[in-house]
């Protein structure tokens, strides 16, 4: 027993005190900022992108397709695309994931996450998640699991991963949805009692990612079920997940009460 106590003391404080204000390392590739004033239409960025996330004239990056590999930034001779380490990139609508030259970090954050009152009322203090991996390469699965570890500890917010869809409030999908998993995903989601949420974790879940064009993928599930929260990343960082969840549950940036509508409008 004394050994165990010594080990606990050795570890010290493991939890990140405030995940909402914690920063990720400097080189982390989060929100890209775009500036096409020097763009010479060489289209090297488009060619470098493995998922077709970039469109030009005007320059846009779709974070739902983006794997944050950074190849576009390396390819561009003008520095038109620059990845910042802003990890708070979750969104509640698909359209908000598309970043343009006018997008700033603050502007993105204030517009991307919209809380819905009924979600706050139902799940604000307790949200149970069921994970369904439908072709995920295990990157997303590991980051999803990591968000429950001693550092990130989503348990402190009343958010837990449960063993059965019958115990769950939401399904977190990772992976592009392989044809072989299409039925299992549908059954798992159907087994979750209403009211329920659907969370897309990672580029593959949001858009198919690197596997979007593969004939082995069947994304018809998403035609039937709308997504409530999008977590961009390949894989999404656990802090992106926490920011997104708390934003969905509690309001903007999870900072407590959602800002009144008038204030939201004046910021964006």
């Amino acid at each position: 027993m004394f050994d165990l106590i010594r080990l606990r003391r050795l570890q010290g404080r493991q939890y990140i005190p405030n995940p909402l204000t914690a920063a990720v390392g400097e080189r982390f590739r989060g929100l890209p900022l775009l500036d096409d004033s020097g763009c010479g239409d060489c289209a090297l960025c488009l060619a470098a992108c493995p998922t077709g996330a970039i469109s030009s004239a005007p320059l846009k990056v779709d974070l739902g397709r983006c794997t944050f590999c950074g190849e576009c930034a390396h390819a561009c001779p003008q520095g038109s695309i620059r990845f910042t380490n802003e990890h708070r990139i979750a969104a509640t609508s698909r359209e908000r994931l598309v970043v343009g030259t006018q997008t700033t970090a603050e502007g993105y954050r204030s517009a991307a996450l919209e809380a819905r009152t009924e979600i706050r009322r139902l799940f604000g203090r307790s949200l149970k998640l069921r994970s369904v991996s439908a072709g995920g390469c295990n990157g997303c699965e590991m980051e999803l699991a990591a968000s429950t570890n001693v550092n990130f500890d989503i348990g402190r917010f009343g958010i837990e991963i449960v063993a059965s869809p019958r115990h769950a409030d939401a399904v977190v999908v990772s992976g592009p949805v392989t044809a072989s998993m299409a039925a299992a995903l549908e059954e798992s989601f159907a087994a979750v009692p209403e009211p329920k949420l659907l969370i897309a974790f990672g580029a593959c879940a949001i858009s198919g990612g690197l596997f979007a064009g593969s004939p082995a993928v069947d994304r018809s599930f998403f035609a039937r079920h709308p997504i409530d929260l999008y977590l961009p990343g390949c894989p999404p960082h656990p802090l992106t997940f926490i920011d997104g969840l708390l934003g969905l549950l509690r309001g903007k940036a999870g900072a407590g009460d959602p800002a009144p509508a008038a204030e939201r409008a004046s910021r964006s």
Partner: protein
Amino acid sequence: MSQWLTLRNGEPARLDRLPLLSMSELVAEVVARCEEGERPVAFFGVAEGDLGRGGEAERGGSEPGGGSERAREGILLVVALADDRASLLSLASAHLPRSGRGSSYPALTSYVPAFHHFERELHEEFGVEPSGHPWLKPVRYPVGARAKGELPERYPFFIATGEGVHEVGVGPVHAGVIEPGHFRFMCRGETVDHLEIQLGYQHRGVESLFREGRFAEKAPLAESIAGDSAIAHTTAYLACVEALAGFAASPWAGRTRTIALELERIALHLGTLSALAGDVAYLTGSALFGGVRTLVINTTLAVCGSRFGRGWLRPGGDRYAIDGDLSLRIEEALATVEHRTRRGAEVMFNSPSVLSRFQGTGRVDRSIAAQIGMVGLAARASDLPRDVRRDHPIPGAQAEVPEVVTLESGDVYARAYLRFLEIGRSIALIRASLARLIEQPEPLRGTGPRGVGPLAPDSIVLSLVEGHRGEIVHAALTDSAGRCARYKIKDPSFNNWFALALAVRGEGISDFPLCNKSFDLSYAGHDL
């Protein structure tokens, strides 16, 4: 005996040097060589049309049922055997029609069980029949197989009948956060008589995707073969593309890539130790090792921006260098990792409750391990000293050769304790590589994938890398236009899933999660 093509790991060769044998010669010579101690590392078909042979057949995936013309097309069967003592790979090939006369041959599995899964895969992909194969069942349900009605719901599980026998099915969706697969147990009471593992739920068509677009720009795809082995799979891919493009990796790149690979190994070993502790309700271990893992992956992130090492290694010049500051940071992190891991392991591996669960559970003995072709950590835990870093080093691309450690008990304890031992050795490897990096720093070559020249036409190359699970093999063949005609991936899980099925025989079914985690195999890596 014919003269086979002898290559080293990562050494390319023109396809016209690959000897073409008759199928019966090939079978006989494979068996003879395996009796002498060689073992299969690659065994796959290439549609002849993809190599630009056999007429104007359309370029496309090696999928059966993709059109009647392609279905009639033959395949080139490529075999690669490894001689670990001599650090050599021996290759040969044979023609096989997909159907009709000549499309069946005596199964190699009957003589060399290590071929069992390779032959199932060949049969599923191309329809050829290894006759006498004891277990010719689906492997991963590629698109062509599904089109012919082969579906996961119809998998023919082995059924036992009798007094008190019952069947337990688990998956594809599992209780935890984990990739999907199905496990079908035949039990009497709590005891498992037989486990059959059915995979394929993660099949995404990865190999076909390597052949689309520019082959030199496939690093992001390589990173996603098995996301927890991004560095290892990418290193294997880089060895192939750089060999085919005639782009020699510098010793500097070798040191950086060694550091990246060993950081990945440490991170995944810690993650598995954490999960194993959790599986026996030893929460202190679960918390401690999980926390130490964060330290390692945040160090990887400090270098390249990704906790999994994505975006780091690229053909023609890796994206991020380790300078003096980062080197110090890595050293500091490793000191903490080493200290905490050792302290945690000391307590955990002396805890009676942990030992009573770990020891003697899920045993795989050495002779079984050798017969079925196990690789990697699980093999070393069953006293089979296989490690690509020692046995098949890529000249110039690997800084240090590690000491290969084995344990004898082949149980959960061995697979857990060996991970702890390997963490220590990986730390030593990183320190040695860092020291050399500082001694002889070289600037990054900034060309990136766009600067990688055309690939040698009509060529073949194999690369082997020791990922944290074990031996990864990538094979690339180019056609006469220098395009990638076939990309074949073998994850170590391809070899080792069957070991799990054997390990749980006679165990209580409630020990299954622990046994499963002790192997920590990849579903996505197997299913591709």
